[in-house]
């Protein structure tokens, strides 16, 4: 770095500004700012930026983030997982089956579910590695298989497709609040008392703040993002992930355990989907056969908005998190802005397309690639 006269471009000096701009998440950052400016202009007085509104789009964004982190790492490692949505429905149903139908303690139900789902993720990865088939096809098969079981199992054992009563069964459990609880409730009560957050006007919760705590869902999202980011950028394993997705053969030749990396990433994606499902089931108290429909695409969209390449080998977890934030804010924000419901998807599509185009354009401009 010291010798600027060298002609070897690998050690070419670059300005600090340019270096700081040469990040996959730059597009996501610009997009985030653009989206917030847009909604501040068009939906400012709609309640979107009051405490409750913020909590609303934060939760939705956090949901996207949880599955986007897994999808992002997997995509950087060069693979897709289309079974994420079905895995969410399946995991939720497993918790209900073990916890309600078989009446096991909730923490055992949750742990068994995690073991089953992460194993299924490993199976996904194993099949992809062994057969050499595109993960697109293999996980598409699991999209159907898992969804089928999610409908079949509750119908067979309970004659219905929604199993409820999980909230009551989880009462007093030590593990359930880790997914469905809320923290900092005292702080939010104080915010309510001093009038920063609105309070309930009537009913049994009169005087309590309308936003009464930080849901564990958001905590999980932030933890997973931090974990994924550190893993990817600060560890040897992170380099292996990039190498496996960039050029698997070259990576193998230089000693990277590509198969192990890929299988582990499939397992991590399944883990993220199970976290999503557990949070949802614990919050709402029931598992339904139709939960998680199309979530796999929402995860992939968030990752791509965040600057990752569909072809693998390039991307960032922070970018994916910003992509999830953009997606969540746009989706809920359009409701706040009062967009006609049938046009809602049109706007969503346009904004997503805009974000990705902007993203790509900025990246090319900064990095100077073709």
């Amino acid at each position: 770095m010291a010798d600027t006269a060298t002609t070897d471009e690998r050690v070419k000096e670059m300005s600090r500004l340019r270096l700081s701009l040469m990040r996959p998440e730059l597009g996501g950052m610009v997009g985030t700012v653009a989206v917030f400016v847009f909604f501040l202009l068009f939906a400012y007085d709609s309640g979107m930026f009051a405490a409750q509104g913020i909590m609303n789009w934060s939760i939705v964004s956090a949901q996207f983030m949880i599955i986007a982190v897994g999808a992002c790492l997997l995509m950087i490692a060069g693979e897709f997982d289309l079974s994420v949505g079905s895995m969410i429905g399946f995991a939720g149903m497993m918790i209900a089956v073990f916890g309600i139908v078989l009446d096991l303690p909730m923490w055992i139900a949750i742990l068994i579910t995690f073991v089953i789902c992460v194993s299924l993720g490993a199976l996904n990865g194993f099949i992809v590695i062994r057969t050499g088939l595109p993960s697109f096809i293999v996980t598409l098969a699991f999209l159907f298989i898992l969804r089928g079981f999610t409908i079949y199992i509750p119908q067979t054992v309970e004659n219905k497709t929604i199993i409820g009563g999980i909230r009551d069964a989880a009462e007093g459990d030590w593990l359930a609040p880790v997914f469905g609880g809320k923290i900092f409730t005292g702080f939010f009560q104080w915010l309510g008392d001093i009038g920063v957050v609105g309070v309930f006007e009537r009913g049994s919760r009169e005087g309590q703040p309308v936003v009464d705590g930080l849901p564990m869902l958001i905590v999980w999202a932030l933890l997973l993002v931090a974990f994924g980011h550190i893993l990817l950028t600060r560890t040897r394993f992170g380099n292996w992930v990039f190498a496996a997705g960039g050029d698997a053969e070259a990576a193998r030749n230089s000693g990277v355990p590509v198969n192990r990396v890929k299988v582990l990433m499939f397992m991590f994606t399944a883990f993220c989907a199970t976290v999503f499902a557990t949070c949802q089931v614990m919050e709402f108290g029931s598992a339904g056969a139709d939960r998680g429909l199309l979530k796999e695409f929402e995860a992939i969209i968030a990752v791509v908005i965040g600057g990752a390449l569909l072809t693998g080998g390039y991307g960032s977890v922070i970018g994916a998190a910003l992509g999830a934030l953009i997606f969540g804010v746009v989706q809920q924000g359009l409701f706040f802005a009062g967009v006609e419901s049938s046009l809602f998807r049109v706007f969503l599509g346009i904004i997503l397309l805009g974000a990705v185009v902007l993203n790509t354009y900025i990246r090319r401009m900064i990095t100077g690639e073709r």
Partner: protein
Amino acid sequence: MKQMIASLAIGAAIISAPVAATAAGHEELNYVLVSHAPDSDTWWNTIKNGIALAGEQVGVNVEYRNPPTGDIADMARIIEQATASAPDGIITTLADFDVLQGPISNAVDQGIDVIIMNTGTPEQAREVGALMYVGQPEYDAGLAAGMRAKGEGVTNFLCVNHAIQQPTVGERCRGYADGLGIELGNAMMDSGTDPSEIKNKVMAYLSANPDVDGILTLGPVSADPTIAALDEMGLSGEIHFGTFDLGEEIVKAIKSGTINWGIDQQPFLQAYLPVVVLANWDRYGVLPGNNINSGPGFVTADGLEKVEEFAGEYR
């Protein structure tokens, strides 16, 4: 120029007169209807048309929201979002009590008026603190059907239930029996959902019980094979036949006289009435004293014309 503006103003006044008359001196009211139906469910088009018409006639804004894939957890987020945008009222279904109970009670506790429509029960609506329930309670609909059938001379009946695992649907049979004033006994048949199985079961039951003079089916799934069974036995028009819901075969059978009437839950009213009720509650503080039954609406051969004309739009 002045004249032109004046005439324009008069024209506008005339056009908007009915709206202005009801909305005069009132602030703008905003309502949101949240359904559980995925985008692909066309049945809800009637609901959209219903709220659009009501909004126009009463002079309020009504928005329609639904989870695109029909995911009830997403629906809960939409209710939370609607609550955060502080509308004057929310109209919603109670598709999954466990999931939606929290978000709906939160909205109620923040001073937003809620009306439950379509899915749910009057009891659940009361529990979440809603103003009322607008829909077709299963038992009441069956009861009304039974009372009508009694008036039309039914003394002995068969209720063909194709959805025995759904206890709420069975309530229709119970109501029907009570309306007739007859013990339900084993007159409720678990028919299954296979058409040929249903047809054969109905034929067997009618042969074994020749004194049956009334049949109730609970939807197109059980009605269509029952029509075929009656045709085959030459009993079409001989036995009093009522059914829930409408469908192509059912409409044909009503026309030909095989079916006496079909029961329509009238989704249009489930959308239209809550808007009117909320607007009058917000403006004048008046509220009907009970839940509103949007059905049963009896569709007979006489009423078919309107059904066919407005099918998919308001029916």
